[in-house]
């Protein structure tokens, strides 16, 4: 490495005309990938919960749903493998200077993530192809590594994102890193834990409400037999328990952001001047100095960020204008996420209350309409949350060390790549919708498993065509 230290690094910033398109391309790839990740996190747990109930009760209905869902799980995992591969390609295709300079600092996180990915791929195949071919106990056990790998995979990827937001574990001199301490960079970072827990719970909320939305829609159309009921209750219960917890976790996340990235926190609210007892404005628009047209809630920002209504909150004015993120994007995304989060927690509370008091599902069709809305809304909240943290990180790719514009590729043709990717991903989404509808329409066979308990009476089996849609 000696001669390189003497010469200037060949990875000096370039003038890239299409930086904005490059960022959009990365954001698009991420927005396609992350909802699929939620299914990778949560679906194996749903399926195992059902299979565990089958093992305990012997009721073949549980096994039928578990088996059907496991096929969806495999198809979505296959799509997740490719969209994840694209993200890793884009790190090099779009941000070579970032990778050249900092790859060694955070690379270990991705190396370990690759092994999580391997384990997930291997055991998801054993699980899905192993129905009827492994003993029930072995089959159930083969699903456990999938759940574990879903967690460790999230952990490893989030270590890298947390590091980008709160970089530690290296020394930067003349555009080169030295004295790299990868374990400290990835795991000694107190930004990691709230991001991890927030995202992991989001996985259960998104996958839970989206799946529940499908069956709530069927419920509204009159399919209310036991199959629908079980398929609705499992994801809905998990999501309904996770959604209120997410608010507590979100509070913890906000306190960490306030401590480590005060500028990002100021952008959440559009707080221009440093204040003691800072308010939160609902709605409105940041015009460069203050929030216009919003509804002020006095002292709330100080209370949320520091659990002290008169705490001092740093405003955007503390940093030069060039170091501030695009405030309105961050602000709208943050309020969208929080608003949807409270909506989800609200319907969760109704569901849990009715169940605890009356031991039944809510009867109002408005409840089921709300669940149908909650599915797509949870995805919106997920993406809004990532916009909050990632656009809130701007203009930095490595917070405080490297600007996004310094990271970008010198290659031309970004708009062509972006347009191509938009078309290809539109086809991908159409294909996912198509395959899910096809899998949903497959004839329903309630089987007890290889050596059969008798199938349910025909009357208990829903008609195939109406099963989901």
């Amino acid at each position, binding site marked *: *490495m*000696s001669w390189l230290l003497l010469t200037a690094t*060949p*990875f000096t910033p*370039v003038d890239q005309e299409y930086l904005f398109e490059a960022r959009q391309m990365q954001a698009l790839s991420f927005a396609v990938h992350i909802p699929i990740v939620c299914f990778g996190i949560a679906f194996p747990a749903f399926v195992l*919960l059902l299979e565990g109930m089958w093992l*305990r009760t012997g009721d073949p209905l*549980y096994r039928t749903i578990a088996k059907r869902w496991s*096929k969806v799980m495999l*198809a*979505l995992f*296959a799509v997740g493998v490719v969209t994840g*591969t694209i993200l890793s390609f884009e*790190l090099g*295709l779009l941000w*070579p*200077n970032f990778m*050249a300079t*900092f*790859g*060694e600092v955070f*690379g*270990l996180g991705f*190396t370990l993530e*690759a*092994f999580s*990915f391997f*384990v997930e791929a*291997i055991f998801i195949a054993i699980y899905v*192809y192993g129905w*009827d*071919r*492994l003993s029930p106990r072995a089959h159930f056990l083969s699903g456990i590594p999938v759940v574990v790998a879903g967690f460790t995979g999230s952990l490893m990827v989030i270590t890298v994102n947390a590091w980008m937001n709160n970089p530690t574990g290296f020394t930067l001199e003349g555009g080169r890193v*030295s004295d*790299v*301490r*990868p374990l400290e960079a990835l795991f000694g970072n107190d930004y990691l834990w709230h991001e991890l*827990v927030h995202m992991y719970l989001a996985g259960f909320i998104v996958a839970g409400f989206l799946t529940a939305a499908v069956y709530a829609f069927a419920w509204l159309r009159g399919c209310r037999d036991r199959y629908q009921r079980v398929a609705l*209750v499992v994801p809905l219960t*998990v999501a309904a*328990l996770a959604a209120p*917890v997410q608010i*507590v*976790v979100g509070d*913890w996340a906000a306190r960490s952001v306030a*401590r480590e990235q005060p500028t990002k926190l100021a952008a959440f609210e559009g707080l221009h001047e440093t204040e003691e007892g800072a308010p939160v404005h609902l709605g409105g628009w940041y015009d460069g100095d203050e929030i216009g047209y919003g509804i002020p809630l006095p002292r709330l920002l100080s209370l949320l960020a520091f659990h002290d209504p008169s705490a001092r909150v740093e405003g955007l004015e503390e940093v030069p204008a060039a170091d501030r993120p695009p405030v309105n994007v961050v602000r709208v995304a943050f309020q969208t996420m929080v608003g949807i989060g409270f909506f989800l927690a609200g319907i969760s509370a109704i569901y849990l209350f009715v169940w605890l008091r009356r*031991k*039944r*599902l809510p009867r109002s069709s408005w409840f089921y309409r709300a669940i149908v809305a909650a599915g797509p809304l949870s995805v919106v909240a997920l993406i809004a949350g990532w916009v909050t943290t990632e656009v809130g990180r701007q203009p930095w790719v490595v917070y405080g060390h490297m600007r996004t514009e310094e990271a970008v*590729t*010198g290659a031309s*043709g970004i708009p062509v*790549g972006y347009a*191509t990717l938009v078309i290809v991903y539109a086809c991908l989404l159409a*294909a*996912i919708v*198509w*395959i899910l509808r096809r899998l949903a329409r497959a004839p329903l066979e309630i089987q007890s*498993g290889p*050596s059969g308990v008798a199938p349910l009476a025909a009357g208990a089996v829903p008609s195939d065509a109406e099963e989901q849609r």
Partner: protein
Amino acid sequence: MTLAELPLVLMLVGLTAYAVLGGADFGAAFWQLGARGEQGGALRQHAYRAMGPVWEANHVWLIFVLVICWTAYPEVFASIFSTLTVPLFIAAIGIILRGTAYAIHAGTAREIERRAVDRIFSISSVLTPFALGTVVGAIAFGRVPVGNAQGDLVSSWLNASSFVIGFLAVATGAYVAAVYLAGDGARAGREDLASAFRIRALGAGVITGAIALVALLVVHSDDGRVGERLLEWPAISAVASSAAAGLLTLELTRRSRFEVARYSASAAVAFVILGWALAQRPELLPGLTVVEAAAGRTVLLATVVGVAIGALVLIPSLALLFGLVLRGRFDEDAGDTDGLASTSQRRPTRISLLTLAVGAGAVGLLLTLIFDGGALLGFGIVGLFAFVGLASIAIVSEATSSFEQ
């Protein structure tokens, strides 16, 4: 070998695994391309079945190679990806189309749908290894200078040497796939499929050998150092071994000894990659040796140790998966196992489970709200997770077993 070279060895192992296993997947799709009619349908189904359980794992090898590269040799990764943007983007699009087609083929019902999906699958399965092959060619022949997009975006890979490596990648995959599929057919007792792929394996073997010879000639006339050094010691030994393994595979295939041919075909691919590595040593990119490109010592150590720990989990898992597949446990007519031997009907006391959940949740809530970090906050989070998990089990098992309305 120094510590600086160790991650490169791991990358070459990963690349070999990807070329053999991922290559066989690409190759299987290649054979679907030409398969028509009734027998063609059987061939296509056979190829899908053989890929099924191992598809995802095979393609994680590519990610493995990439992440080691950007961790251990970050500037090399950045230089390659910024200069070879075009072929890598083509490969990326191919990977998306291929994965999508694979994920949805199970849902195809009508012949016309099946045909369309298969066609996308096959074309992208040829395009992707070809594009990745041109990338290997561009690296091997020194057309990727160090720096952010410092090489020519077009001529770096759009040239005879890169193309011939692209063709070699496609042909090798087709060859290995035909050998594997013949073996899978024989194991499943489908003599018709075994003989159909035996003929394809023989044909592809001869063609792959011919492309390899042409490649040696083209590469030799290229300016790069690698071309000359491929025919010098020590690379020549790997090239010769590859040729020998290729010929052995042909003979084994001719005698229908497919299970052994599987391994000799894989060895032929591995020796090609070894030959490339030996010929290019010690430079990774022009003017940048492995030692110069390597990350700091701590990072290299952490990477090697991380991979070693990962391998402890990965190797038994892979052995389990391939053991199940190669023993035919996932084949369609594989025997059923014993069913649910005994189902206990015990009803655990769910109220206590729910109480436990609420207790954990209350403690978790309190700790999470009070502490900003440290072990007590950690306990709080564990408590919240315990609440979600335990309450889910408690509510779901009661709410689904009661049957009202």
